[in-house]
């Protein structure tokens, strides 16, 4: 472990805003995209089953 304390870790040597601003956006997108796709898949399936009736 490189850091001595957790507050050191979150501060990122004064670059916290830049580092966490990068990681947060990547994380949000990588969680959002699969969820959106899952929803679209379910919608497609129910659309097809509605059309069949």
């Amino acid at each position, binding site marked *: 472990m*490189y850091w001595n304390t957790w507050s050191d870790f979150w501060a*990122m*040597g004064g670059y916290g805003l830049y580092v966490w601003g*990068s990681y947060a956006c990547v994380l949000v*997108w990588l969680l959002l995209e*699969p969820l959106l796709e899952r929803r679209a898949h379910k919608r497609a399936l129910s659309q*097809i*089953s509605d*059309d069949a009736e």
Partner: protein
Amino acid sequence: MTSLFRFYTFAAPSRFYALATRSVPWLYALAMMSALIALYVGLLLAPTDVTQGDAYRIIYIHVPAAWMSMVLYLALAGWSVVGWATNAKLAYALSRAIAPTGAAFTVLALWTGALWGKPTWGTWWVWDARLTSELILLFLYLGYLAMVEGADDRQRGERAGALLALVGVVNIPIIYFSVRWWNTLHQGATISMTAAPKMANTMLQGMLLMTVAFWAYAFAVIFARTSRLILEREADSSWVRAFVQSREER
């Protein structure tokens, strides 16, 4: 001959659908595991960089995202060529499925680059060859998406998009070699960035692990989207009807 033709036109999409939907959860699991290890190595284990300070830790996501943005574009263009040449249903579906994820990785590469550039270069953005060509890559993705998703006639849209994608391939070597061809602010090869070999090792490991995670993620989300696109375009086929019915009975 007829049986071969039938395989390519009918059997392939249903087989792909079954295989892809089954592999997606495993690919997500692989992506999550390697991302967690990469985060541990890159954010907790690796020491700080002497010249850049801890802002350098952005490269663990910036570089893999930038790699993905280029690799996915090549894949998009490659499947477009296959689609154009063979008219295989799967090929255009793959191209379309790649585009949103590729565009997203391009945005993330630009965004993380800006957040790295501000503390390190003192500016969010410069019109340097590497940054400009990466921005052009984003416009190529957006142009492709507009052409394909906005088309009234699906086939025409996909063919027009394929042509744009193919022409845009010329931009990929420009991005890649821009740091060598022009005197840019953006630095050259990432791996030579560090001085001490021990440091370089941890950093390299973190970056490669994140690259594995992004690859697995890209495969997962693209397979998921391709399956959905296949479902939509094959909605009237017997296998989709049978599949949807079997789901309802469960």
